């Protein structure tokens, strides 16, 4: 693209995205290599991944692959294959797309995820993941291990940490038996230190969006989050985030926003519709709408403390956004609206992600009441475009903007 054409787009493309693509490509190759060696585990997005990584077990993320399926617009086809097997359309579309892609890898983007030798689920993000992995286990023969993190209301009590910690110890035994490896404390410390440092740099990128204009938009963060979710404990992940942070700082120093003419700043709540997110964000960018914060990419923050590392892992993974009550979600949204000086919020009600979408109607009222800014709930899905009506979404977003502009 010529420099002039770049200048004219409402949206500024990040230079570091080229490096991001290489990082993700390398991660994919590592996944295939691990699978061929018989050392690959599939993990859920909130799984305490530092443990398998420290035990030299490769990891792949079916939820992230679900996002790829969504972006490639292959959701209806692959979800349809799962439905042919008898799964309901009410089931999570990440699960359906994953089951469909295992059934028909030849019709899946990148020919499917590499075959797993273990399936590691953590129910801190939802309960469906266990049954989903059970289904994949039936199809692939890989055994399932569950790390159980009971939902938290309020502060985490010592017995809760002890319970989750017990599950993590069992995980280590499971991985040792399955893959013939051991967990060295030094290695775990090294991996968690690297993860903490990476999350720290990522958090700085997020917090830079408090600036006006915001240096990153929602869609930038949705892409840039991939390594902090999936490729923790790797030095090249840290290298990528340092590069992103430098670019973000440059933008802030030079007063450059993610979009050219920032007029309205909004909060995004929930997983995006992967098949449509860039179109929605692009068309809103043309009207001066930017999303400096969202609850989704802010879910991968925090740090491992210098206490007993296993206890710290137990604590961090129990306290993830989706494992907490409605009050914590409302507090988080109100906090982001205040800290990032936002004018309103958009809550995406994801038909197939019940855990994230539950309570949105109530929280919309509470957030508006506490912050004084208006919001709107739009409906659709992250992967299955059959569950989305674009005209209804446009009308709701337009009406919100007419209240703000």
């Amino acid at each position, binding site marked *: 693209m010529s420099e002039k054409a770049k200048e004219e787009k409402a949206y500024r493309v990040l230079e570091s995205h080229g490096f991001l693509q290489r990082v993700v490509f390398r991660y994919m190759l590592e996944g295939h290599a691990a699978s061929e060696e018989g050392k690959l585990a599939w993990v859920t997005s909130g799984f305490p991944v530092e443990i398998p990584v420290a035990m030299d077990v490769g990891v792949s993320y079916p939820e992230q692959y679900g996002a790829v399926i969504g972006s490639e617009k292959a959701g209806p086809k692959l979800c349809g294959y799962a439905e042919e097997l008898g799964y309901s359309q009410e089931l999570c579309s990440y699960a359906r797309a994953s089951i469909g892609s295992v059934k028909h890898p030849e019709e899946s983007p990148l020919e499917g995820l590499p075959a797993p030798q273990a399936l590691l689920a953590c129910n801190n993000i939802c309960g469906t993941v266990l049954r989903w992995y059970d289904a994949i286990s039936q199809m692939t023969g890989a055994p399932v291990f569950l790390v159980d993190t009971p939902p938290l209301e309020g502060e985490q009590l010592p017995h809760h940490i002890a319970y989750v910690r017990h599950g993590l110890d069992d995980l280590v035994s499971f991985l040792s038996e399955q893959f013939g490896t051991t967990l060295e404390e030094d290695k775990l410390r090294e991996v968690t230190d690297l993860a903490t440092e990476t999350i720290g740099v990522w958090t700085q990128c997020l917090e830079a969006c408090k600036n006006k204009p915001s240096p990153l938009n929602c869609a930038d963060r949705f892409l840039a989050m991939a390594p902090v979710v999936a490729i923790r404990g790797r030095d090249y992940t840290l290298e990528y985030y340092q590069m992103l942070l430098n670019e973000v700082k440059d933008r802030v120093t030079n007063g450059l926003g993610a979009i050219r003419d920032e007029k309205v700043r909004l909060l995004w709540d929930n997983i995006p519709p992967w098949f449509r997110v860039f179109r929605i964000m692009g068309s809103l960018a043309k009207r001066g709408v930017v999303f400096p914060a969202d609850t989704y990419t802010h879910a991968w923050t925090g740090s491992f403390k210098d206490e007993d590392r296993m206890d710290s892992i137990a604590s961090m993974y129990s306290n993830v956004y989706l494992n907490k009550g409605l009050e914590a979600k409302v507090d988080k949204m109100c906090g982001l609206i205040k800290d990032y000086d936002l004018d309103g919020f958009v809550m995406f009600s994801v038909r197939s992600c019940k855990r994230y979408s539950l309570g949105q*109607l109530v929280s919309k*009222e509470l957030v*508006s009441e506490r912050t004084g800014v*208006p919001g*709107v*709930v739009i*409906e659709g899905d992250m992967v299955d475009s059959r569950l989305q*009506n674009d*005209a*209804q979404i446009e*009308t*709701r977003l*337009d*009406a919100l903007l*007419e*209240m703000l502009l």
Partner: protein
Amino acid sequence: MGIGLDLGSSTTKGVLVDKNGKIIAARLIPTGAIASKAAENVLEELTKLSQLDLGDVSTVSTGYGRTQVEFAHESITEITCHSVGVHSLNPGIKLLIDVGGQDSKVIRIGSKGRPTNFELNDKCSAGTGRFLEVMARVLEVSIDELGPLALKSKFPCLISSTCTVFAESEVIGRIGSGESPANIAAGVHQAMAAKISTLSRRVGVASPTAVTGGVARNPAFCHYLSAALNCDLWIPKEPQLTGALGAAILAIARASDTE
């Protein structure tokens, strides 16, 4: 002058107003399969009715087909347009319930006639005009006959499903068990009123409340909605035209802003 065109899922409405917002001409036609064609047709009708040259008149489009009107100077959502339209007719209205062919909206109107909060039905067509059209077909009456039929009922039967497809099966079941058409029709209206009442409570019921859209012409719906909300409802003389009227008023404002 200003022209407002409201391209709804069932009907397209056109309103021409003078500079004071007084209606000079208004027309309603079926939208049909091509929204842009409906817009052209309704403009032609307004030209005939007013016998004026409307070529340069400021025009705002609204409704689901709003972006299809190439000759419109601006498109604005029906949420804003209905608020402005109703406010111009009755400035005291605080809550507006608009039930159209494809969706139902509940809008809180601020002191300046602009929306301050709103909720729309979910993707399901239950609680919309389409729901009543489907039920009228099953009961073998016209859509205009459905409301009066329901008002004859003394013992409305319970329609528990809020999904149009399931409710249709439920109605067919009731017919099969010998329930009278009047009682079934009343149950259908009660179910719809209950759904919209829930939507209204989410925004916050506030008096006085107005009802607009094609469904506002249905006396049984208004009767059961009034009971469900426990308040009187104000219905404009032409409840289907308020969106187009609001668009026309916004067209005047737009023209004076650009002058």
